[in-house]
């Protein structure tokens, strides 16, 4: 049984964290928008602000993983892989924030996923 190449694991971690960061920051912005203009605004600013900070921290962590991944595989391989985050953020937004996604966009997401799969599957024999 072969070991999964480490570059892919690091890249997947980075991409996942990046998507989570974006969703976290989006959630924080939505929370901020919900409270804005209300009398309790000042007090309830804490949670959206904390959410944004958390999102940035998650993003920074994801970037660290990215640095490690890029040291281990071609950038023309890794960078297009990161397009998977479009699919992840879209799906996350749909389930977390009830964002409506019509058919055309779903098809686009499917095409991105197909492209990422094509790219990854051909390269799993070794990371170059």
């Amino acid at each position: 049984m072969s070991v999964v190449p480490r570059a892919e694991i690091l890249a997947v971690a980075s991409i996942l964290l990046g998507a989570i960061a974006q969703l976290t920051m989006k959630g924080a912005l939505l929370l901020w928008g919900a409270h804005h203009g209300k009398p309790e605004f000042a007090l309830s600013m804490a949670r959206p602000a904390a959410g944004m900070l958390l999102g940035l921290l998650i993003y920074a962590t994801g970037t660290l993983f990215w640095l490690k991944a890029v040291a281990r595989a071609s950038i023309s391989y890794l960078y297009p892989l990161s397009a998977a985050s479009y699919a992840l953020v879209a799906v996350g937004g749909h389930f977390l924030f009830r964002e409506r996604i019509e058919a055309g966009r779903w098809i686009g997401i499917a095409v991105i996923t197909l492209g990422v799969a094509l790219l990854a599957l051909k390269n799993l024999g070794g990371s170059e």
Partner: protein
Amino acid sequence: MTPLVPLAGSVALNAAAQVALRYSTAGRGNRPAKLPRLWLGVWALSFCLATLLWLAAIRQTDISYAYPLLGAGYVLVTLLAKWFLSERISAWRWISILVITAGVVMVGVNR
């Protein structure tokens, strides 16, 4: 100046940043970079600048224009990697990258 100019600039800077990062960490071909920390700095600076440019310009742009630019970024990184890092890009890799680009454009157009 239409907001598409800074957006395109952002995409180009980001692509350059990624290539600089790869060069910093792994050099070109068999040869490591002579000043890896310099190139890491180039990456960090370019990345921050690209992000600021994007955030500043995206509000004034129809997002269905922004996504094709992002899609073009994948092709640009591949070309820069080929030219400056001597990376070998197989036909299969090109095809998958073009499929990804098409998908990103589709997502942008369908908003």
